């Protein structure tokens, strides 16, 4: 019978083992493998030379090109995150505070873009913003402009596509933390002499910070890792780091270099996550999925 007590200590590991086995086998081990691969070398024929070469790392870390694209990627991810934060906060606030009975329905609506194919969603911006797209057609027909405006294929449209893709993540996160705030607190602040806006600034905003931070982390990481959006909505120059990884591995068949590039991106985002976990805790992300 003593086994039962030992069993209780073992139970969480029994429950976790399928997940951990899956993640270890399909994520951790392959990631370690990629580390090994990054020290190999691509030969002229396209085959890989096994060995220990630092060439890829010297190239990746020493070349300004990669640094610049990385910077551009982080910049795009940053813009996306900031816009998502500003644009996402408002509906989250509305849904959290509305007295409408259809709160759940409003949330469900916000979730809906999640259920629509990412490719189709991204591509449909072409039909909206294109020279003969919906927006230009509308503007011309009501006489605001005479000739179509060129709106597509630049960095702004890439950010737009990403914002559209990631906004629900942000709204969901902010909503959860806003919903958890005791309404008495803002009332208390107002009773102490704050105006409505001051109460928001002094109480609601700081208390919703964790949700905002969790949403921002998700937005940033997911934005920094995309490569389809810049292909579909970007101009000739608008590439992101994941495109370089894709090109190195798929177009140039240079897997060792692609591995090194992958690891750079991973290390950077990983560092971000570690910093975040340290100061805010991964649990906050968990909270947002209620």
């Amino acid at each position, binding site marked *: 019978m003593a086994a039962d007590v030992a069993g209780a200590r073992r139970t969480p590991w029994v*429950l976790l083992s399928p997940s951990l086995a899956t993640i270890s086998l399909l994520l951790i081990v392959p990631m370690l493998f990629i580390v090994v691969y990054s020290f190999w070398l691509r030969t002229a024929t396209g085959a890989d030379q096994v060995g220990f070469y630092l060439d890829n790392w010297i190239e990746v870390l020493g070349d300004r090109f990669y640094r610049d694209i990385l910077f551009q990627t982080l910049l795009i991810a940053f813009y996306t995150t900031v816009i998502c934060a500003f644009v996402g906060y408002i509906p989250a606030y509305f849904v959290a505070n509305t007295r409408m009975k259809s709160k759940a329905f409003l949330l469900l609506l916000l979730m*809906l873009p999640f259920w629509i194919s990412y490719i189709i969603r991204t591509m449909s911006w072409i039909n909206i913003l294109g020279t003969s797209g919906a927006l230009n*057609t509308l503007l011309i027909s009501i006489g605001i402009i005479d000739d179509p405006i060129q709106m597509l294929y630049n960095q702004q449209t890439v950010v737009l596509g990403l914002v*559209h893709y990631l*906004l629900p993540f942000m709204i969901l996160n902010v909503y959860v933390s806003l919903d958890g705030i005791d309404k008495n607190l803002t009332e208390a602040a107002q009773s102490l002499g704050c105006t409505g806006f001051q109460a928001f600034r002094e109480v609601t905003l700081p208390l919703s910070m964790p949700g905002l931070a969790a949403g921002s982390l998700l937005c940033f990481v997911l934005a920094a890792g995309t490569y389809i959006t810049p292909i579909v909505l970007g101009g000739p120059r608008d590439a992101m780091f994941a495109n370089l990884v894709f090109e190195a591995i798929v177009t140039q068949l240079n897997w060792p270099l692609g591995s090194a590039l992958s690891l750079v991106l*991973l290390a950077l985002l990983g560092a971000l996550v570690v910093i975040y976990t340290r100061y805010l805790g991964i649990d906050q992300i968990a909270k947002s*999925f209620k």
Partner: protein
Amino acid sequence: MMSGWSVIRIATILVYLFLFAPVAVVILLAFNANQFGSFPIEGFSFRWFEALWNNDAIVRAFKTSLLLGVLTAAISTTLGTLAALAMVRYDFPGKRTISTLLVAPILIPEVVLAVALLLFLQFLSMPKSFGLLLMGHVVFTLPFVVLVVQARLVSIRRDVEEAAMSLGATPVQTFFEVTLPLMLPAVMAGMLFAFTISFDDITGTLFWKPGGVETVPTQIFAMLRNSISPEINALGAVMVIFTIALPLVAASIARVMAMRKVGASK
């Protein structure tokens, strides 16, 4: 002068419009008779739906995606629910690290994950298979399930489970009789999450799919290489309707269940 609340309400409506604009356009253009699926709309037609219906490749891809999504949802919900149970109901050393680990797949850019797994497989001399594609999908849908179920599980009071056990139910019986029914909404949500993310995935799928297996997004991707066709819009419309219908059906089922629970006497 408008009150702050009205401004918020209007801004909210605008954000909703922004979120749904592309969806609306896709559905609108699916009925456009015009060859290029662009504005202005030149006539109302079902021809693209017809073309879609007759397109074997798409229908096959749709079946594959459906099967893949359902299996992914089933497996990753099972794994994720077990993991969430461990995380919420037990204390053990290294919990923090494991919590980070469970979320890791959504924090690693998918292209990196895809490539890593591909290289590893080649090293093992293992052929790609539907099973691998499935497991790949399980890995990156797992965190969403874990997070959703975990959040819900926290709010289920432990004493209800203790009560069940005090009445003679074993831990396993307790899970199925009490815990599972109570966290069913979260499990369903996690399942839905996993299903749609799997159904929507392109990057990982492109790398992992074995030959001859196409999912809807990879099929769209392949179609884009060779033909532009409002069939894609029709497909989008079908997917939108399909994916909108799913949560709505789930929601109404949940409501019916809730109604039954509350009953008529209240």
